[in-house]
């Protein structure tokens, strides 16, 4: 299974276990900036850790501090290995844009239709620097 996704923010290619979120998430209040753990008790993936995972996001909601949480995760090593977004979210991705300005290494962020997310659930996924997404079966 593979697909080539549009690159939203270039960055380091990543591989890790897929974490496919089944509901939109607010990074601020929803993800612990220290640990990358999903802290929103109402979220279906509550308790999962996004650090080192290939994170599939069907959508984002809520606070405009999502960028700060993602940048903090980049800075402290708790960021996802790669981000796969259904649609570009300028608030969240700003965390990567500013981290790049600061000279920190950021994970790649790509765009993929959320209808295609299911094929990657639970797999070991690689997102290459050219946006190619592959899953080991």
């Amino acid at each position, binding site marked *: 299974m593979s697909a080539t996704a549009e690159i939203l923010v270039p960055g380091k290619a990543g591989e890790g276990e897929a974490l496919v979120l089944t509901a939109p998430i607010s990074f601020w*209040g*929803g993800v612990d900036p220290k640990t990358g753990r999903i802290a929103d008790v109402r979220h279906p993936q509550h308790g999962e850790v996004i650090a080192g995972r290939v994170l599939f996001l069907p*959508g984002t909601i*809520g606070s405009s501090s999502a960028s700060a949480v993602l940048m903090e995760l980049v800075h*402290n090593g708790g960021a996802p290995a790669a981000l796969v977004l259904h649609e570009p979210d*300028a608030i969240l991705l700003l965390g990567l844009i500013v*981290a790049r300005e*600061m000279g920190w290494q950021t994970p790649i962020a790509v765009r993929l239709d959320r209808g295609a997310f299911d094929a990657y659930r639970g797999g070991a996924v690689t997102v290459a620097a050219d946006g190619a997404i592959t899953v080991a079966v």
Partner: protein
Amino acid sequence: MSLALSPQEQAIVAGQDGAGMAMRIVAESARLLGAPRLIPIASAHIDGALYHGDSGTLFAERLVEGGAKVAVRSTLNVGALDLMGCSRIRLEEPQRGMARRMMEAYRKLGCEQSWTCAPYQAGHRPALGSNVAWGESNAVVFCNSVLGARTNRYGDFLDIACAITARAPDYGLHRPENRRARLVFDVSGLSPSFLASEIAWPVLGSLYGREVGNAIGVVKGVTGHPGEDALKAFGAAAASSGAVGLFHIAGVTPEAPDVATILAGPEPEAVIRVTHDMAAKARAGLSTAAAPKTIDAVAIGSPHLSHDEFDSLERLIAGRRLTVPIYACTGRHALALLEKDGRRKRLEASGVVIVADTCVVVTPIMPELSSGVLMTNSGKFAHYAPGNTGYAVLYASLADCVESAVLGNPVFTDIAA
């Protein structure tokens, strides 16, 4: 369409100073959003000065070192510390020092020391139709919806970058054609007594956010202006449960004299008819605690309490002594009025903990409890308190919050939807 920068903007982008960094952030965001150009802005509200970790402090200090200054009026959202010294923040070193450095860096960038999530009640009210760059989801939705100024939901860092460059990507809600409603959220099936109650607005806001997501809707069936604090509560709840940046209320908000005027087409794409059941479910969904016998605290003031809301609080407490504290979060604009006539001292003598410049869900203030129960009348606190404080939440009206704080156990007055 690709982004075209003016020669002047291109020259700034190439710079190695703070202004260059800010312009690159604005331009890169514009590219990501598909904006064709940048537009001038009249003001900014900066949400980036809240400490989430060292990275944000290092970014702000990099801008200061690069000689950057804001080029338009820029108010500051809450920080992580109560600089007025009203409440004790349990943030320890070294985080405390980094939070203070961050707040100081934003001051050096030329931002106003407003430290409030309700800048629109602290004298920052941009004109109808003007373009601005505001952060903080409740401030954004109020600015767009109630004031009719035009802003997108600016994330941390882009807000300060826009303030420094005095520019924003020409995109989204800056464009009049994107401000029209596609959905109708019809509340005319709800009882007039529910619609007149204080809890109606946060509850309906929470439901609205969940139903419309990031689409633009117009609320139909509201008779008479519910008051600015009600609209503040509606918007804050809607922006917590959905990605709402703009709502209209027919006959109430400035761009919607009536439903037909604000609709994008002759017919709405969908009509959400709000029933008693939907409102009751939305209300129940704001609570996470299951029938606790006691409560540990009450928190109010998200968004920050206005002067009028302090009037209601004082009237409801009526000089009684509270069993559990009420954390009343506000900005220094409201505090100044409270100090004037000794009201702050009276409220504190009753057991109210006034929190200024910040609030209980963004920085550690309330004691750490393993199974704490927090009561609130704020849809936004109800949404964020469980994740950010570890407290389970009970949602209730301000009157019930005050009675519960006096007794130490939850009291609910039945308000039928």
